[in-house]
Structure formats: C-alpha cells, structure tokens
C-alpha cells in the first residue's frame, strides 16, 4: 500500500532565522505593521510504499529524522497522512 506524507521541518526555536527576519522586515514596507514572529521552514512531500500503515509511518519517520532534518538545528514533524493513489 502507498501512503502520502508531508514532513514539516522548522528551524529550532531560539535559533536566529535570517530568512524569517528578512521577510518580516519587508512587511512594514508593504503596509503590514501588525505581523511579527515570521519563521521560514520547509515542507517535504513523499510517498511511501509499505506493507501496512504502521510500516509506512515508521519508514517516513526514519527518513524525516535521519535525512530531512538535522536535529542539531531543526525540529521535524510528520504533518499529515492520506491514502495515495
């Protein structure tokens, strides 16, 4: 069976996010003075073909933690799961 996963990778809280800061700094110039705490992360989508749901999820978790995110600087979360075609 195939399962579709989304993985969200975020820079750890407390680490300066220069991309988020740059986006944030652009907002007042565009007229938004009420938006703050902008952080830029990554969204990774993938399809896992496995025996069952549990196996698919465990593969996805391993891929996410071993490759998609670096635990030194990032937090990772398996965001959603749905049946893939």
């Amino acid at each position, binding site marked *: 069976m195939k399962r579709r996963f989304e993985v969200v990778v975020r*820079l750890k809280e407390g*680490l*300066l996010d*220069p*991309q988020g800061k*740059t986006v944030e700094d652009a907002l007042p110039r565009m007229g938004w003075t009420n938006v703050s705490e902008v952080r830029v992360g990554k969204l990774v989508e993938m399809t896992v073909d496995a025996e069952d749901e549990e196996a698919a999820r465990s593969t996805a978790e391993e891929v996410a933690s071993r*490759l*998609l995110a*670096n635990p*030194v*600087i990032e937090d990772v979360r398996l965001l959603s799961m749905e049946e893939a075609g």
Partner: protein
Amino acid sequence: MTKPRVAVVTFPGSNDDRDALRAVEQMGGEPVSVWHRDTDLRGADAVILPGGFAYGDYLRTGAIAAFAPVMEAVREHAEAGRPVLGVCNGFQILCEARLLPGALIRNKTLSFVHRRVHVRVETLRSAFTSSAEPGDVLEIPIKHGEGQYVADDATLDRLESEGQVVFRYCTPEGAVTEDANPNGAMRNIAGIRNEAGNVVGLMPHPEHAVDPDVGPVGGQVLFESLLSSLVGAAR
C-alpha cells in the same frame, strides 16, 4: 623519503578540490584524488573534504554528501584516529556526518561573504595546528553563504572547556570582536576539532592561502602541521 599521501575527495559540486590537491603538493605532500563513489581512500595517510556545493547543497549544506559512499571510508579513517580536514563545504559535511558537533547555517546577514579574514589559533592540540604558535593570527580567505556556526549552549561550553575550538574570527591584531565575525558564528567560532583532535573543520580556506604569489599564506601552517606530524609518525 616517501611523501605523506593526502587524499582530497571530489563530490559532484566540489570546486576547491583542485586547489586542495595543489596545496598538498606545494607543501610537500603527495596529493591523491578520490571520487565520492570510491569506497576506500587509496592508502592515504590523511583526507581533505574540500569546499564547494556537494550534491548542489540541496536539503541542507552537506546533508546528502554525508551519506556518499566514500564517507564510510572517511568515518573509518576518522575513527582510527587519522587526520581528516573539512574546509567550508567539507566542514558542513563533517557536521552533517556527526563527525563534528554543531551545524552551519545561513550567514546572519543572509549575504554571501567573500573576503580575507583573520582567525586566531586557539589550540595547538589538533592534527592541523600542531606547528602553530599559541595565539597565532592567520590571514585566510572565506567564501560562503552558510558559515554561521551554531550549537546548543551545552555543546559550546564543552567545546570551550575541552579546547576543541581551534580557530576564532578576530581582528588583524588578534582581538575576538563582533565586528571581526563575518557570519554571526556563535562565539566567533571559525573552526573546531573532535575530542581526539584528528578531525578538524573550518570555514576559511587554507588551501587558497599557501602560495605567496597569489595572496596571504595563513593556510600554510595547517599543511605544515599535518605533513610534519605524518613524517614524524612514519619515522
């Protein structure tokens, strides 16, 4: 006398491998080119992971390269206590491979920085600084977009207390100041070593700083340290 053999790994996207090979030769070693798909280091005594953009630096800098076939041989080499140097992208790869602690993220300013900097030698207890003098200030170029060294406070404190900070960005006079820090690196860290001291990573490019005809020669002492210790060990 046989010259020490120093391997330089070429990943797809490496672009300082040629300079590293040339620097090894100029400094008196025998350069050995190794491909990322190789599974051994061709009998080399030491290995350099050069700068560049291995595998396009996709996902994170060094993230894919850390799992390249050759990295198993590099890991074994490192675990056997033999010298490994990671320069710029090579430093990022060593961090991703967990051969060195911490990580390198986007420069604080978001901009790519390309200029000569000064770094202070913080310890002689590494395979690449053993011939330096304490507090030596080396002029070496940098060129990177993602050179901001980060780690959690506990790791940083351990690096400091164990003498694992090898280089710090400083003024030409050797003062460690915020202005001398080109990328926002925590505690001005430009390079570190592992606990044993045989694995060293740094953002500045010593291989671009060995030839007096083309610029500063702050990189020479790293190669001198390496080659003299290898020659000493062979005696």
